[in-house]
């Protein structure tokens, strides 16, 4: 597989996920479930964050004059690392919210972590 093919597949997956979130958002809003609709927006934002980061990594790698195989390996290492660093703050906020029994924020932080986990699993599955 080339980096181009991987990008197509992974970005396709994220775009589909974002589309699902948008549709769910609209449906929930129409159904007078605004808070749950807002949760879909949060999920979409998380997809956006990782999509931007993924594309940034790919752009950087494309400038390098290394083999396609090496690029793929570096992308795997760099981008997987993002799934460690980015959610760190969300984990800390989740712990804090749990300590204070802040239900609204517990739900939001868990949602963010759940989407990040799903995106990570999908990324690793492509290799």
């Amino acid at each position: 597989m080339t980096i181009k093919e991987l990008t197509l597949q992974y970005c396709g997956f994220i775009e589909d996920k974002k589309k699902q979130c948008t549709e769910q958002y609209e449906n929930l809003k129409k159904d007078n479930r605004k808070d749950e609709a807002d949760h879909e927006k949060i999920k979409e934002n998380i997809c956006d964050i990782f999509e931007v980061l993924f594309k940034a990594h790919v752009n950087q790698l494309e400038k390098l004059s290394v083999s396609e195989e090496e690029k793929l390996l570096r992308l795997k290492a760099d981008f997987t690392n993002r799934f460690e660093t980015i959610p760190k703050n969300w984990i800390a906020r989740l712990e804090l919210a749990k300590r204070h029994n802040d239900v609204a924020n517990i739900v939001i932080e868990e949602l963010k972590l759940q989407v990040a986990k799903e995106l990570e699993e999908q990324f690793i599955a492509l290799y």
Partner: protein
Amino acid sequence: MTENDAIKLFKSLADKSRLMILKSLAEQPMYVELLAKRLNLTPPTISFHLKKLEDAGVVNSKKDQYYTIYSLKENILNAKTLDIIKEESSEKEVQEEREEQYRKKVIESFFEYGKLKSIPVQRKKERIILEEIAKAFEPGKLYTEREVNITIADYHDDFCTLRRDMISEKILSRDEKGYQLITKE
């Protein structure tokens, strides 16, 4: 019921999931997992909505061994909507409520789980956060500077600035004996 309480109440009811939860609770008191199963929603989503309903005063919760059982607070729901709408507040009450709302907003944006995130630049806002911190001091009790620092440090690391500002804002008084909370006449 104040206008804000009424808005909170109506907002809490203006959601289909929350209305379904209330319908279920009208049948009998229930716990989160049971509601989740009945309404085909996840337990975290149910907890999220129950918190909103509880904050609006529509729902009660009671610990029962392993579960928290939720039930309807019927006195609020039995009240006539027209009575709630008609309830009038005096100009003074409206003003007080407005000020209280502003105060609440400032506290919510500058505090997180009881910790001060940053010291406000605006004097009016800083006064509000200083008054909030002042609640940790007992009226009439004499404090040493160390005790004052320790108390303020629970809220923010820059206890020196906050301590000095509490003096200049006349929230705390300082003399040779120590520090004391200035109580309003």
